[in-house]
């Protein structure tokens, strides 16, 4: 489990909005995995941990959805417009934040975590066709978002 933490941290960060939120999710996930380790019969520990993390994340999102207004405590953890990030990366992050959580989870599991579609279907407990439609939806949304914000000032060539 210790060896998996870096990859789980990456997945956690790819689902959440801030480093703090990500570490909270990681911690909750590890704790849940340890408590339930007796029930783990599968072969792939990371996939199992990813499933736990996704469920925990969706559980937490439910609460956020009911509180559209940003609470004070949450506001502190919202990513400030970063000056360190290259512009491109900041824009990508914003586009990612705007994705629906279920589509985002699929996209990250496929692209960042490198899972096969069939494995993603198992992790999320959904049919492979649903994986494909969410993936496609995520890509289209990301592309449109990036284009829409890609306002290139016109310059006359010298």
């Amino acid at each position: 489990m210790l060896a998996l933490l870096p990859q789980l941290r990456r997945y956690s960060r790819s689902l959440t909005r801030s480093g703090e939120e990500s570490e909270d999710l990681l911690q909750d996930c590890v704790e849940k995995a340890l408590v339930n380790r007796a029930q783990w019969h599968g072969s792939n520990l990371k996939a199992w941990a990813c499933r736990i993390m996704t469920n925990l994340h969706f559980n937490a999102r439910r609460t956020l959805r009911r509180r559209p207004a940003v609470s004070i405590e949450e506001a502190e953890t919202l990513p400030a417009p970063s000056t360190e990030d290259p512009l491109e990366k900041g824009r990508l992050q914003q586009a990612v934040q705007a994705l629906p959580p279920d589509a985002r989870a699929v996209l990250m599991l496929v692209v960042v975590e490198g899972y096969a579609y069939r494995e993603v279907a198992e992790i999320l407990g959904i049919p492979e066709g649903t994986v494909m439609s969410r993936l496609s939806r995520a890509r289209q949304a990301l592309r449109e978002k990036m284009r829409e914000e890609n306002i290139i000032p016109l310059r006359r060539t010298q």
Partner: protein
Amino acid sequence: MNEQTRPTDAELNAYVDGQLDAEARARVALYLADHPEDAALVADWQAQNDDLRAAFGSFEQSRPGDINLLVPRPAPGYWQPRRLTLAAAAVLIFAAGALGGYATPRFPTTPSERLASTDLLPTEARNAFLVYASEVRHPVEVFADDEAHLAAWLGKRLAMTDLKVPNLQPLGFRLVGGRLLPVGGQPGAMFMYEDQTGERLTVLIGRNRENKETSFRFASADGVETFYWLDQDIGCAVSGEISRDMLRQVADAVYRQLPV
């Protein structure tokens, strides 16, 4: 330029993700060579993949305190801000529910009003699910290791001496625990279950002595599915973000286990 059938969206996605076999891959590549618009789309997606990996790849790192994550945390104190915010949200939601729904606690008797009032049960069930299923540390008041006490306590508050906590183990859901909460302005019970991956569902039970109806219904809102029924004076609702089919199986198991 030869006419080729456009690959499906699924195939284009799989091409970008390197999840096609060699034959299909070659076929899509051949198609893209002749179709610049789709080729541009695919190139965009590939660039997206690279950007995403670059953006999140750097978070794959170990940290000095990692070993501590594997050690159980001490019991949380009341100072924990995250939990407090959730608790406050719970209080607010139930206060709003009480004010909005139960200014008149008696069950109305005309058919149209009765319909409106039975609709409060799934709303309450969904609220309870949304509030408590997201709780990591305090989802319930009494945990499953004290099941006998839980059944006796809630049975007493609901005036159901033979109340047993429904067993959903055969469906893969183990009991997390339960709590007392208002249902229709009266003491009600909530039991929470989860499967081994942490997917949760809740069972809400309330009583209303004046109800003589029997009905079963599905309700769906906010992505939460609720299956609920009124049987004599017992109202029961099962909520979760699971398929209707599974929910129906759960509801069936609960229904058969509740005292008549």
